[in-house]
């Protein structure tokens, strides 16, 4: 089946190491033999049920083909067919390589001693001798320099997707790739993404990661909007500040209770229509807490932006485009973003 002159995936690339598991397949770091360029190969099996190419692969590839000109969406360079050891057809999605993701980046700051470059330690030591101050100073430094930049890039990438009629639906730190040197951030793993022509039907067996799932999804709303992605952006924003997940539920009910404990149990006053949603029932009644209790080190402007991302009513939640215009980003140098 291989065409003459067209290299198969194995002939074109040298696998260097497995770097992770995507939503539906393994991901390898590899070198393109012809150019020496380092790429990421995402492998997708086709043989599982003989129902052809999986819908998630079709959607991811075709949507990425459409979105790849934005600098904040990971670039899909090619699609290659190959065969695995059992002779089954596999597809390799060839992506630009990014050396880390936001999940790893955040985790690296929890072990702060191991990640601060030595030359920065020397500078900090000359200013703040004590260990406590070093950690506090560095965290503050990170907040002021990179937090805004990463959040702005995320809003910009999401705005680009939404502006082209694409919902991501699975935004989480693991799906946000980063280049450590340039601190560029790119949205990846669009296997659950889909184009919307309004409104979008409900999807059974949703696979959205619980921690970043919008309350209307948890409550069984049958119509999604771009607001589901903005809820995820808000959760990621808080996690970037605190280094911990904002709402780490381990079941759908626990996820809702986590949200309600902080933002207050919703009612018809704050969220018209909420009690008519399919999964709604009686919940413990909590009063809303101030967001600053959950994200204490975020400044007032950041807290305002975060609160607009975490509005209960989807139509009241800030859009990605408007988030980019929020005063929180006013002092950020956006020329290279």
């Amino acid at each position: 089946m291989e065409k003459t002159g067209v290299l198969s995936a194995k002939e074109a690339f040298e696998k260097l190491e497995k770097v992770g598991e995507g939503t539906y397949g393994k991901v390898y770091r590899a070198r393109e033999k012809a150019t020496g360029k380092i790429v990421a190969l995402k492998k997708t099996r086709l043989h599982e049920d003989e129902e052809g190419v999986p819908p998630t692969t079709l959607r991811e590839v075709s949507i990425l083909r459409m979105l790849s000109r934005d600098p904040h969406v990971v670039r899909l360079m090619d699609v290659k067919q190959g065969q695995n050891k059992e002779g089954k057809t596999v597809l390799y999605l060839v992506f630009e390589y990014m050396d880390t993701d936001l999940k790893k980046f955040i985790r690296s700051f929890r072990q702060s001693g191991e990640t601060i470059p030595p030359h920065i330690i020397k500078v900090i030591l000359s200013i703040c001798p004590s260990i406590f101050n070093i950690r506090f100073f560095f965290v503050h430094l990170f907040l002021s320099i990179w937090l805004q930049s990463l959040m702005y890039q995320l809003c910009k990438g999401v705005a680009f997707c939404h502006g082209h009629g694409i919902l991501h639906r699975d935004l989480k730190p693991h799906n946000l790739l980063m280049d450590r040197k340039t601190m560029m951030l790119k949205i990846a793993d669009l296997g659950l993404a889909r184009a919307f022509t309004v409104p979008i039907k409900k999807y059974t067996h949703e696979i959205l990661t619980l921690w970043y799932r919008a309350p209307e999804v948890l409550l069984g709303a049958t119509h999604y909007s771009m607001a589901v992605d903005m809820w995820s952006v808000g959760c990621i924003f808080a996690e970037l500040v605190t280094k911990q997940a904002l709402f780490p539920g381990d079941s759908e009910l626990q996820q809702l209770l986590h949200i309600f404990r902080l933002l207050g149990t919703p009612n018809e006053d704050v969220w018209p229509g909420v009690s008519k949603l399919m999964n709604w029932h009686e919940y413990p009644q909590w009063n809303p807490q101030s967001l600053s209790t959950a994200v204490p080190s975020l400044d007032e402007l950041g807290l305002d932006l975060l609160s607009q991302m975490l509005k209960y009513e989807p139509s009241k939640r800030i859009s990605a485009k408007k988030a980019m215009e929020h005063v929180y980003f006013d002092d950020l140098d956006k020329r290279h973003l």
Partner: protein
Amino acid sequence: MSFDSSNHPISPDLYCSEVTSEVIHLDSDDEALKFNVLWGDSDHDDSDDESILLNLLESEHNQVQEQTKFLGQQLRKKTWLINAREEAINWILKVHAYYSFKPETAYLSVDYFNRFLLSHTFTQDKAWPLQLLSVTCLSLAAKMEESKVPLLLDLQVIESRFLFKPKTVQRMELLVMASLKWRLRTITPFDFVHLFISKLLCSASTWGDLSYIVSLVSDVIIRTCLVMDFLEFSPSTIAAAALLWVTNQCVDDKKSYCLHKNISIEMVKKCYKLMKQKLIIRRSELYWPKISQLLPRSPTCVLDHAAAMQESSDAHKL
């Protein structure tokens, strides 16, 4: 120059009203609320619509240049392929109706089919390749658009002369996708319909039921798939002409500019005129799963609906 559309028919839906009601929940009283929910922004303003429309038109422009613009010319050289293509598309539309797929699924199936024809040659002596292509394009479109996708064998339950194994369809899927350069997410007229409706509503807020309008517009758009001559028009042009046709309006400069300044008034006029000619002639040949139970509300629609039924019965007498 204006086109008199007072005689244009309002026709039954191509697909079930249940699907329509399931997909489209816009009611006239909470129409504004729905649009707000759609865009996730309480201060929904025209600039958001405008930028989305601009993005769509830009993507459409990039897309059209490499796609089905020249297929019409190629098809005219092969009479047998025109008929075979129409037969294949009719089959796709029957399966689409059987499974109550979304209108976008039907349109995308035909789009993939057309684009593949553009780059591959078929011989007249064998019928199975086009049938395999039809099954494959419908499968790909369903996977892109539907929440529940039937098994590959189940897709072939309706009037199929050949039955292809899933492995065969999978190989064809890979061939089609390589041919289409994996660009399955294409701009369709459906991307524009709601944006255009929201613009026209600002200038003429007389229509009572948005879901009815959307249903009729979708029906017209799907039927353009059967007529080869519509291949020269861009999706936005087809959407604009279909909306103006369904809402019984003349095509003039004001209406076209109201939609977007980047949309060519001349092309909309030409497309509109073609709709008037072709869809009346072809209407009786289409497959009707059922006549829509939706009833028009305004007096104008009632009159046109009655005229449509009259014309429909006349057409069947021929």
